[in-house]
């Protein structure tokens, strides 16, 4: 498997990456298509950079996931710059939680593809769900926040 697919699949099999992605989608699920698109673009761009920037410590993913879950729990509706910030934070958290050990430039685009596709599809799903069952976004946000806080505590213990 080449580094491009490795960059995408490492994120797909990392529980914290998937949780961060779901948390971001849940947070953006209360917005319209334009803000969700801004968030997904910001997430994939910053995620690609973060996947290659090993100076960004992986330990930041857990608190970031907790923040994203909190946005969903509070049922906030990020607009404009706030949507870009939420998407960007989600992209960074998703990328650093599951990036591969080897540094090769195709890892970045691979991560970006996974984040963009995953975030777009999951956000669209949350937007549909939010119109019928608004509590689902809050419940999923609570899961993501709980996972982030638990893994943060685990990292501190280590």
């Amino acid at each position, binding site marked *: 498997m080449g580094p491009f697919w490795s960059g995408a*699949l490492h994120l797909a099999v990392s529980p914290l990456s998937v949780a961060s992605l779901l948390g971001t989608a849940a947070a953006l699920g209360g917005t319209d298509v334009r803000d969700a698109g801004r968030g997904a673009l910001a997430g994939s761009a910053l995620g690609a950079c973060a996947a290659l920037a090993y100076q960004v410590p992986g330990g930041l993913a857990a608190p970031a996931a907790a923040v994203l879950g909190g946005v969903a729990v509070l049922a906030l509706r990020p607009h404009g710059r706030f949507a870009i910030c939420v998407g960007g934070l989600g992209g960074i958290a998703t990328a650093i939680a599951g990036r591969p050990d080897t540094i090769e430039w195709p890892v970045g685009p691979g991560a970006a593809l996974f984040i963009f596709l995953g975030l777009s599809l999951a956000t669209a799903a949350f937007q549909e769900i939010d119109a019928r069952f608004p509590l689902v976004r*809050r419940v999923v946000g609570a*899961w993501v*926040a*709980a996972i982030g806080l*638990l893994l943060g505590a685990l990292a501190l213990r280590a």
Partner: protein
Amino acid sequence: MKSRIILLLAVLGALAVPAAQAHSGAGVAGGFTAGFMHPLGGLDHLLAMASVGIWGAFLGRPLIWMLPVAFPLIMVVGGVLGILGIPLPFVEVGVSSSVIALGLAIAMAWRAPPAIAVAIISVFAIFHGHAHGTELPTAAAPEAYAAGFVMATGLIHIAGIGIGLLVGVRGGQPLLRAAGGVIAATGVWILAGTLGLA
């Protein structure tokens, strides 16, 4: 709408296949499975989580979402205590008691004020979280284990809410109250087992 859901499922399925092949019963996948099965495997956890959802649905808004949201977040407090190795007395008794108390709340159709309902849930969530957190550092893949058990807990809550929504159906309330009685009785049996009396 239908085509979007099919597309989403297809993409998720395609992403899941390599993961399933790469990890079978060990590592990340094994840790996730172990964590996911943990709340489903123990009757005490299963009944307590389902009762949270049922009671929330019984109480209506805002508690229908407040209880399933508060539970995992407060559970983290207990989880962190467990991870850090800080002992909490009577954890198993607390877990068993949660089944009895929540079963009774449903059986008696107790419409607790929101603050009191959240406080009750919070106390029990700490016991449940501590029980999970103690096991977490010894798990094969702690990240995956934590994700698995939080997700399973949430899904049981949602199933409980689904069951609890029967309260709006004709004859649903007596049925749910009877179910609450059965849950409480099962909790007594579990507690007796914990204390070595059964």
